[in-house]
């Protein structure tokens, strides 16, 4: 069996076969401030009390609009808080950061677990070998009430990264490169990633790759945990963890080799995350703003590399640089290590943790004709405002913020 099939088999009484619809038990059930109020409304409209199957497995995580900057969001968050207090549900409130990350850091989500949330990047937990899925508020309300959901078992494709890059690269470059290489071949499939390059990738780097499986059109992308990842999960969870790996005779729908020996800094041009070209193709284009953060690139290592580039330099006078660490834990770490001061001195705006730019959140939007570099995962027209958004790594974003134009190095 493949990884998804093994996780499913341990969470269902039904036969796990590709194409079959099974009833899947869900270990971690979450809703955000986006979608959360609708979940509450769905429960109250469709059931008569007894809304929560198991409060200890149910969470609200507020990250979309943190703290609420519109009355609508403020109301929705308060609806969730009142409901949560009444039913004994824990709320990771607006100070916490992005929910999927917070629950991994808290050790609540780890390898072999099943988790759902009102967040289309919930499959990000494939980075540590867990099954996660973003769902709408109808689905999530049903899971809150029953602890289960229906799921069509997807076929799995095996992606083998071959070779090792000789030049400069980051996990984001690999993610963008993979989106381009896969085209629409991952649409509706589970992916398992293998290859030497993954051994060089920390938890943070793996999260970056796994987060963009949504943009590959995949259901989820699993990166089999190595010792470092297992240790990280054990430290967070406080228990011994044995990862779920695929069987040697697992059946894959397809095997795809992607040669990464020529991997270099990549960038997605405005309009779609799949408009990917090497950064060198657009080198020199003037920019107005830079956003470093999101569930894809706001972790400690992303902050560290950003800080390293900014230290002792100044953000270009024509550029706004907005830095948003993904979680409060990361915020604390970079605060204690003096990075906040260094980024501040360079001219960066540093915001509280959360989704920020991706959800019209706390760091504002782009205006017409504004050119933005973003380390996020989507750049569909209009998503982050009226401007043009390019997607790139924190390295490229920070170097460009200093230069005032798109560049790989400063």
């Amino acid at each position, binding site marked *: 069996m493949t990884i998804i099939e093994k996780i499913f088999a341990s969470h269902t009484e039904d036969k796990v076969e590709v194409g079959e619809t099974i009833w899947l038990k869900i270990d971690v059930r979450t809703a955000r401030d986006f979608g959360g109020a*609708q979940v509450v409304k769905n429960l109250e409209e*469709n059931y008569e009390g007894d809304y929560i199957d198991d409060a200890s497995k149910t969470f609200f995580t507020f990250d979309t609009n943190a703290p609420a900057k519109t009355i609508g*969001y403020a109301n*929705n968050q308060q609806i969730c808080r009142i409901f949560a207090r009444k039913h004994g549900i824990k709320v990771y409130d607006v100070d916490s950061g992005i929910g999927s990350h917070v629950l991994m850091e808290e050790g609540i989500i780890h390898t072999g677990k099943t988790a759902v949330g009102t967040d289309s990047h919930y499959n990000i937990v494939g980075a540590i070998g867990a099954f996660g899925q973003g769902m*709408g*508020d109808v689905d999530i309300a049903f899971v809150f009430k029953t602890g289960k959901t229906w799921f069509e078992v997807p076929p799995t494709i095996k992606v083998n990264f071959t070779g090792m890059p000789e030049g400069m690269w980051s996990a984001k470059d690999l993610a963008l490169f993979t989106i381009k290489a896969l085209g629409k071949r991952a*649409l*509706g499939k589970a992916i398992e990633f293998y290859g030497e390059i993954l051994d060089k990738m920390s938890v943070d780097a793996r999260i970056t790759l796994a987060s963009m499986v949504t943009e590959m059109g995949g259901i989820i992308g699993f990166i089999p945990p190595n010792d470092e990842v297992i240790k990280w999960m054990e430290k967070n969870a406080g228990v011994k963890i044995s990862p779920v790996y695929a069987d040697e005779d697992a059946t894959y729908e397809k095997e795809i080799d992607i040669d990464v020996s020529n991997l270099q800094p990549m960038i997605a041009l405005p309009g779609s995350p799949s408009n990917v070209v090497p950064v060198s193709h657009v080198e020199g284009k003037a920019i107005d703003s830079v956003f470093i953060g999101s569930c894809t690139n706001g972790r400690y290592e992303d902050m560290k590399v950003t800080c390293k580039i900014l230290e002792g330099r100044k953000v270009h006078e024509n550029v706004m640089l907005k830095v948003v660490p993904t979680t409060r834990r990361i915020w604390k770490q970079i605060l204690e290590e003096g990075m906040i001061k260094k980024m501040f001195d360079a001219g960066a705006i540093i915001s509280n943790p959360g989704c920020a730019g991706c959800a*019209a959140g706390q760091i504002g939007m782009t205006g017409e004709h504004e050119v933005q570099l973003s380390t996020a995962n989507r750049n569909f*027209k209009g998503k982050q405002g009226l401007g043009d958004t390019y997607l790139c790594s924190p390295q490229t974003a920070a170097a460009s913020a200093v230069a005032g134009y798109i560049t790989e190095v400063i």
Partner: protein
Amino acid sequence: MMIRGRVWRIERDGKLIDDIDTDMIFHNKYLHIVDKKETAKYAFSNLDGWRDFPEKARENDILIVGENFGCGSSRQQAVDCFLSLGIKAIIGKSFGAIYKRNAINSGLAIFECPDIDKADIKTGDEIEIDIENGLIFKDGRVVAKAKPMTKVQLEIYRAGNLFKYAKHQSP
């Protein structure tokens, strides 16, 4: 069971538009809206050439869309806005996985039909869909064949939505 309605081909320059994401269907600036009826006003509110769709759509209309329709976020409003306009079904070359679930759970019929572009169906045509078999009829003739819904999907659709379905079942 048959669904009957008038067709909208969601196209630009005569071609079905691919990769219409949830921000083009229902932009994130309206995410705080919880009232389903209100979502109707914002259907395709960020899709060039289609912003006036809520004024043109009529009860029982059917959408024909391109590849990967509804990719992007998990927002239910991207389904609710069509239901509130009275749209009864969407036939597409393919759908984003979350979108497909959201639609089925809410009682919006979804049909995957990779060859729909080859069928002789224009905007304004009246068509019928045989939901059990995925057959699409125009003037009494089969003009396209979609992938039929799976058993569970069909049961949820027949019940009206996931909640009504669950009341009759103990999954």
